């Protein structure tokens, strides 16, 4: 009960950051940025260097970063802590525990195991142990189910795999979606437009594991061009990346099309045309920027969706990525693996959203000037 109250209080506190005045937001955001950077770099660089780096980041952030970004930092860092707390609560509410299905554990053995792995019976106590471990010792802790391995050792090799798959999928979805959408927007109400929008609708409609399994049958079993599953070469990554990219590509295509149609009706496009600029120049130099705006603002959710989809695609194509560890950890109640993968995923999403914010501020000059 008290835990639920803490959770509600935390959410309210997060919402309350909207009331924080701009100057305080700048200061606090920059401070948090430096702190996080310092804590992360502490083990890689040693404490003195990390302090210098953190202070440098704080100063630079305070001086140069757009308010938009600092506001996000101020919101996201506490949000990450809250997420760890919420995840802990949810895991503890789930029936069963990591030690339940071990062969006939006596209470003494279970107590010893709980002490050894730092998994006490209450969620709050676990949260305290976990946060101390994370901040003071700088480790994600030992895996409870995979004997003798730490979570870092498990996620370490999986991280680059997931990042490679995810970024390739995002790249594919942006390039494919933008191409299709811009083409459709320029040739509005023609056969090309209808065809590409139908493709987009089908892409948005089908779950990626259906697309993936069909691709697997066609390209691996019938034509034997690509390996069925696994990881290691570019040929392995192709099908999972496409399956992961298609649903997002479809959404991006629709956004880009409507963006393009809207932009082409703007006055400044008429001006550009009236100046006698060639149409290709008008499109590339003037219309593209406006078309990109809705697409860029979708990239944050798109990154999240790519990761969500990657759970399924990784299982389908037996890709040894982080999604598999999360799913396995959740089913086995391996608390530290679940939290570790969750933190890494959230960290990635946060980082990506920051980049999107910066890109957005760069694309829209109005945000840049009003942001300072």
């Amino acid at each position, binding site marked *: 009960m008290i835990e639920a109250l803490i959770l509600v209080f935390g959410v309210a506190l997060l919402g309350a950051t909207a009331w924080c005045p701009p100057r305080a937001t700048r200061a606090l955001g920059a401070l948090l940025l430096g702190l996080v950077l310092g804590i992360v770099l502490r083990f890689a660089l040693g404490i003195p260097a990390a302090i210098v780096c953190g202070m440098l980041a704080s100063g630079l952030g305070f001086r140069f970063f757009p308010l938009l970004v600092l506001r996000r930092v101020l919101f996201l860092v506490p949000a990450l802590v809250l997420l760890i707390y919420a995840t802990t609560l949810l895991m503890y509410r789930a029936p069963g525990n990591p030690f339940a299905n071990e062969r006939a554990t006596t209470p003494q053995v279970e107590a010893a195991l709980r002490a050894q792995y730092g998994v006490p019976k209450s969620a709050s106590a676990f949260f305290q142990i976990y946060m101390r471990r994370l901040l003071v010792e700088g480790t994600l802790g030992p895996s409870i189910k995979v004997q003798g391995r730490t979570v870092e050792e498990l996620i370490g090799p999986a991280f680059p795999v997931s990042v490679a798959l995810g970024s390739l999928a995002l790249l594919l979805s942006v390039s494919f979606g933008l191409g299709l959408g811009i083409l459709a927007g320029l040739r509005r109400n023609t056969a090309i437009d209808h065809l590409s929008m139908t493709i987009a609708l089908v892409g948005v409609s089908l779950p990626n594991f259906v697309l993936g399994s069909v691709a697997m049958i066609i390209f691996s079993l019938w034509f034997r061009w690509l390996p069925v599953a696994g990881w290691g070469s570019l040929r392995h990554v192709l099908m999972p990346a496409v399956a992961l990219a298609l649903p997002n590509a479809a959404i991006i295509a629709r956004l880009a099309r409507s963006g393009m149609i809207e932009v082409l009706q703007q006055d400044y496009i008429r001006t550009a045309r009236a100046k006698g600029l060639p149409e290709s120049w008008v499109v590339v130099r003037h219309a593209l920027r406006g078309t990109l705006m809705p697409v860029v603002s979708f990239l944050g959710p798109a990154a999240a969706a790519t990761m969500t989809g990657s759970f399924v695609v990784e299982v389908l194509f037996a890709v040894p990525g982080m999604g598999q560890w999360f799913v396995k950890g959740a*089913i086995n109640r391996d608390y530290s693996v679940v939290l570790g993968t969750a933190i890494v995923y959230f960290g990635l999403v946060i980082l990506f959203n920051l980049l999107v914010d910066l890109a957005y501020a760069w694309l829209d000059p109005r945000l840049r000037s009003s942001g300072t």
Partner: protein
Amino acid sequence: MTRSPFQLAMQRLLRNRVAVLGGVLLALVAFACVVVPFLFKLDPNLTQPALRNQPPSARFPFGTDGLGRDLVARVLVGGRTSLLVGLAATAVSVLVGVAYGAIAGFYGGKIDEAMMRLVDFMYGLPYMFLVILIMLMFSETARGDMLPVFLALGLVQWLTMARIVRGQVLALRRQEFVLAAELLGASDARLLIRHVLPNVFGVIMVYATLMVPSVIILESFLSFLGLGVALSWGQLVSDGIAVINPIRSYWWILLWPSSFLGITLISLNFLGDGLRDALDPKGKT
């Protein structure tokens, strides 16, 4: 003869051939899933060990699976689950999303900003985490009890609805008829429920229709990962994927559930797009 806006919208919808096609297909699939298993007393779990992996034939139009179960029965009964999950989870998310969005839009200002900041934040989360964790919480409730699925899926899907409703309410709040009602002394609740929300109804309908397919997809993800709670299309597709192998092809085990799932999802999107064009011409994307 003058027509009400609703009649005009329906007229626009019926002129949209693709949307009508979607609606008809959807009605057919729903009818088949809901009524046919009753009519023919189909049992999706009856195993016939002598009749394993039968290809489609007159007796088993869709064939049988590895345990000799009739795929017609399994696909139709599984479809019932998928459609039910889609509708019920959408209902949950519409309730939450409309309430949240309406309050944010109605009061505006800092309240709105704080509420929407949370929505923006949740928008960027890999929501599958939350769904999986919420599903785990209920993992030992009776198999076949689908309430947890409705809740879990509904509680992560309400964000889009909240955003859209908030935008609409924000604009409507400043309209003269709302101000007039306010001057007449109507309470906030009355203003919102009697005057503002009825005008958002069309938009809510559109996005609810578009939400159903995404909920069905999410449920199929869960089933695919082995976290589903009942026989559904997602589970049947993953059964079909499990028997993909280079030596013998059991294509029918994968084909039928995938096609039913695909046709339903595409029809829902067609219908939703058609509704959007008919009811909310400006929201076209």
